[in-house]
């Protein structure tokens, strides 16, 4: 028996969790590039360092982003991955697929690339991992033929993404899928042609559970909320109690605003909705009995991002409640104002949240025409260094 070329990675074929090494080997049965990828990765496992070169601009006609250049730094050893570029392909909203569409995608990718994919990348795109330079245009042409367009990369609007929303969730306060698709289609130019200071990400969550982590992972986070009373089905509440849910301990005592009470004798739940802050805990525990109210819309937050450059940030509330219904004019106008201000003022590679830190939330709110409200802050400032507009001091 010949000795394996990849003893370290072979170890990761063992164990119960599905193995990415098996996936690479499986692609490698047809594609020499997948086997060279595995061999290069084995070298990385030996040397504890990556072997992809920095940069290299590639693309397809008519687009400024969506394809990311990737070159091996050891083409002498791994010639089949000398050029091994990535396609970011815009996912169907909510990551729903027909098997027909997925199979068509697989056929295109087998024809042009390594046969390796990610379902999905961090921003939500389908990632097609590893195509040689000479196949890029033909691969895109074939993708277009089956109805798949490219996603964003570089300093552009990155592919928007949304939670499953009303397709399969009773918590959805907004139609996340329709809104996401509408934004995606309206701003195709912004997605496909990088012309901004840096990247801009949009994620849409249907409720404050934020299953797509929009508050952490997007510059503009749109979170479905309601502002009237929680809808209560009193019989269903009793059913939860009878089935063993300790409503006092698990629901009422954990309510952050102490706006609920439970009468164990009469098996009655009372909610002082005026004091509810809509955190979702009680609804999460009793979805059959409690539902978000009927006056629904979205909160809009700005500035979420990962650490580079000035530290990780979560989105900050700029609109606590906005009606979001087709054609979403108010939201789109706000987004366009934000982009204008950011584009005009930001330094190269300055995310909108960092620009707000540099120039001040006050200037940002003025520029985009939003009035200050207490929901924007956890607490007001504690320092005396604030500005007055000379107009106000006349």
């Amino acid at each position, binding site marked *: 028996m010949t000795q394996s070329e990849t003893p370290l990675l072979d170890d990761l074929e063992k164990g119960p*969790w599905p193995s990415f090494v098996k996936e690479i080997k499986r692609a490698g049965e047809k594609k020499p590039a997948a086997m060279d990828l595995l061999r290069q990765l084995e070298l990385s496992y030996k040397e504890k360092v990556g072997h992809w070169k920095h940069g290299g601009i590639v693309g397809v006609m008519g687009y400024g982003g969506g394809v990311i250049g990737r070159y091996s730094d050891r083409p002498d050893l791994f010639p089949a991955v000398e050029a091994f570029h990535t396609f970011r392909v815009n996912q169907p909203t909510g990551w729903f697929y027909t098997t027909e569409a997925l199979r068509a995608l*697989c056929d295109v990718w087998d024809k042009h690339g390594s046969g390796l994919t990610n379902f999905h990348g*961090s921003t939500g795109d389908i990632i097609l991992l590893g195509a040689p330079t000479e196949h890029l245009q033909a691969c895109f042409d074939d993708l277009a033929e089956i109805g798949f*367009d490219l996603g964003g990369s570089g300093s552009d609007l990155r592919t928007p993404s949304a939670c499953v929303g009303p397709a399969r969730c009773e918590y959805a306060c907004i139609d996340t899928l329709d809104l996401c698709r509408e934004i995606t289609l309206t701003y195709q130019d912004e997605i496909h042609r990088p012309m901004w200071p840096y990247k801009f990400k949009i994620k849409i969550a249907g409720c404050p559970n934020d299953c797509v982590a929009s508050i952490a992972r997007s510059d503009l986070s749109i979170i479905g909320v309601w502002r009237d009373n929680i809808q209560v089905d009193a019989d269903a509440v009793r059913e939860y109690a009878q089935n063993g849910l300790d409503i006092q301990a698990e629901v009422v005592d954990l309510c952050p605003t102490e706006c609920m009470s439970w009468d164990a004798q009469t098996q009655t739940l009372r909610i002082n909705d005026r004091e509810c802050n809509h955190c979702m805990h009680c609804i999460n525990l009793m979805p059959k009995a409690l539902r978000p109210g009927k006056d629904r819309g979205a909160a809009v937050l700005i500035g979420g991002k990962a650490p*580079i450059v000035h530290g990780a940030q979560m989105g900050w509330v700029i609109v606590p409640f906005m009606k979001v219904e087709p054609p979403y004019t108010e939201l789109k106008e706000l987004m366009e104002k934000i982009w204008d201000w950011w584009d005009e003022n930001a330094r190269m590679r300055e995310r909108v949240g960092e620009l707000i830190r540099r120039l001040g939330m006050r200037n940002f709110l003025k520029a985009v025409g939003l009035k200050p409200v207490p929901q924007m802050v956890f607490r007001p400032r504690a320092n005396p260094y604030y500005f007055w507009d000379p107009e106000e001091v006349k």
Partner: protein
Amino acid sequence: MAKTDFGPPDYREMIPPIIARNYGKWRYHERLRPGVLKHVSETGEALYTVRVGSPRLLSTDTVREICDLADRYCEGHLRFTSRHNIEFLLSDEKKVQPLLDELKAKGWPVGGTGHSVSNIVHTQGWIHCHTPATDASGIVKALMDELLPYFESMELPALCRISLACCLNMCGAVHCSDIAITGIHRKPPRIDHDRLKNICEIPNVIAACPTGAIRPDPKRQSVTVNEERCMYCGNCYTMCPAMPIADPDGDGVSIWVGGKVSNARKPPMFSRLVIPYLPNNPPRWPETVEAVRNILETWAKHARKHERMGEWIERIGWERFFELTGIPFKEQLIDDYDLAIDTFRTAATFKY
């Protein structure tokens, strides 16, 4: 020239008929068992979801196999979650058990619902990134092999979201996870002066440094790095390939805990650094796996029901967290970046 700017396929053509019929009409859901959800509509129809863990990196042939299953059990439709899980969507309850049997026979793990460890959001790592400080898929595989019982059950105090980013760029934006693993460098960049002057824009390189450690070096048409100020973020390398920072001995992983994005009970929280460095030890990163397991199991043992990692730590206090986990409190855990003072304690209330 091919058509451009037509956007993604319309999700309305991708959703299964039962979802089209009940779009926006879902009334409630139940977790029938780990990995199996039942959503009931106002129309009375019920949708069964079977959630399956995937390695994220999939060959086209495996995608086709997943399609075969969806054809047989789900009328040719399926979806993926934001955490790389596959979801089979069934309109026929009778098909759920046969699908579960077939998934089991084929070695696909079912779970990730409710109070569980769901799949680990992760990045490319050494497989396909040019700035990684560690691998992603290997650590995730090693971890999930060990944590599988927590994926396949719902016995934890609350859900636990684990995420991994292979450098500080954090493509996975892991900074609000119950447990986050982040690749880090520990040595300043090395400057290739001859290359730098030809391929890098010096003002951009200087501006890329968050600590102001990079200065121009006009004599060499290059830059210098004040190594005492460098915090190894690697942003200069992103701007300038002539400043490589990856280093076999310097690189490794860090562990962060207590973040969340959900608003339930407490507002969203950042993850906080608890272990500043563990070595890159492929193929299975035993130190990292053990550290994550220790944190997870210590939380599972001590937290109250519904208490996420960060809520538990806030209740018991960080000094108690370090005592219970046995993790040494290192100087790197005390912030010295620009919002550091927000983390310093300004109270005389402690636990000893």
